[in-house]
């Protein structure tokens, strides 16, 4: 499974990772406090944006703080899973040609995990726990599991990059938050480029070996996209900002037509990739949008 185009891309991404390497532990100047009367997240990106479910500015600003913690917590938990899965595969025969870049990948993700958690621990009560399912994740056989793992990583990275790329230059939010979003966006553009090429190659390999599971995989990946959208609406953020009947507010926000249109927009890039790569026969946006 090697071709010169992919090898060239890997070499280029590795070189960029070396050239742009930074020490995450000294990169940021952490302020003593982050003012709570400032917007920690632009209100346009809140889960209730466009719904009028919450219209009081004080509550919305509190929600922006808790959504920031949720957003960073999702990063921390997602990165942990990502690192476990990549660590299982690095220096194994099937992933030998990716070793060099996977070292950069793990190193950069480790840095991201640290600064997201560091923010939450310095300025809030820490990260939210993972909303883990008590059921073991479905297995699809080794080759398809590789596709699932890296598809999950790609979806996760694309969702967060949507926000990071925008909030990384948003003057409304505190400097430290803008700097964290910008740093993550800078590294993730390389990871997404790598992830798309890798998922396509892993998919072609699995499909050739076991074509009967194609529809099952498409359904799982689409369900994972829906699951990821829902994870942004952590019920705890609504409880913590003090709204009455938090589960009902969450449910109404999730199914609000304005939010559903936003979910499609949020997923557009990765949805298009899955369709173009032949992994989806129809787009997620046309059938799974009702999160």
């Amino acid at each position, binding site marked *: 499974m090697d071709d010169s185009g992919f090898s060239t891309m890997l070499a280029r991404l590795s070189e960029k990772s070396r050239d742009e390497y930074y020490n995450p532990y000294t990169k940021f100047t952490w302020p003593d406090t982050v003012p709570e009367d400032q917007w920690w997240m632009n209100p346009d990106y809140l889960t209730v944006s466009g719904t009028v479910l919450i219209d009081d500015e004080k509550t919305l600003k509190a929600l922006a703080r808790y959504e920031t913690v949720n957003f960073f917590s999702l990063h921390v938990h997602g990165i942990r899973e990502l690192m476990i899965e990549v660590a299982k595969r690095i220096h194994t025969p099937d992933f030998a040609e990716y070793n060099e870049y996977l070292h950069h990948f793990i190193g950069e993700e480790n840095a991201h995990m640290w600064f997201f958690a560091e923010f939450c621990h310095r300025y809030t009560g820490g990260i939210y726990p993972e909303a*883990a*399912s008590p059921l*073991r994740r479905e297995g699809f056989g080794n080759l398809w599991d590789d596709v699932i793992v890296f598809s999950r990583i790609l979806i996760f990275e694309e969702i967060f990059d949507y926000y990071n790329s925008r909030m990384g230059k948003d003057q409304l939010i505190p400097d430290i938050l803008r700097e964290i979003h910008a740093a993550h966006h800078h590294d993730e553009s390389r990871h997404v480029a790598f992830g798309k090429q890798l998922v396509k190659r892993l998919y072609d390999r699995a499909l050739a070996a076991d074509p009967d599971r194609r529809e099952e995989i498409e359904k*799982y990946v689409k*369900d994972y996209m829906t*699951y990821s959208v829902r994870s942004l609406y952590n019920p705890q953020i609504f409880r913590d900002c003090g709204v009455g009947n938090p*589960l009902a507010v*969450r449910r109404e926000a999730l199914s609000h037509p304005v939010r559903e249109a936003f979910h499609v927009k949020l997923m557009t890039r990765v949805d298009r990739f899955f369709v173009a790569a032949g992994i989806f026969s129809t787009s997620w946006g046309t059938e799974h949008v009702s999160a």
Partner: protein
Amino acid sequence: MSARENSSTTSTMAHPSMDTVLGFLRELNASVDTIAWDRDLIEARVLDSLAFVEFLLLIEELTGEPVDLATTDVNNFRTLERINAFLTEGAGHAHA
């Protein structure tokens, strides 16, 4: 099909919230309307690990109590019969 009709194969009366539960599960897999109430929902591919988190939130909304998996057996949610018992008897009585 209502929960009461669907539960005709069981001797237990269906809790009023079972219609909401069945509506949620139907969105995941329409076969829930025809499966036996003692059939494992995970083995029947109605519920999976991705949908389970959302399903527990639905149960929380219906009962008004958070579902603490440290003290509540996950098996309480694996069949329609057990879910009905959980809703009827409450978490305090439905531990495995």
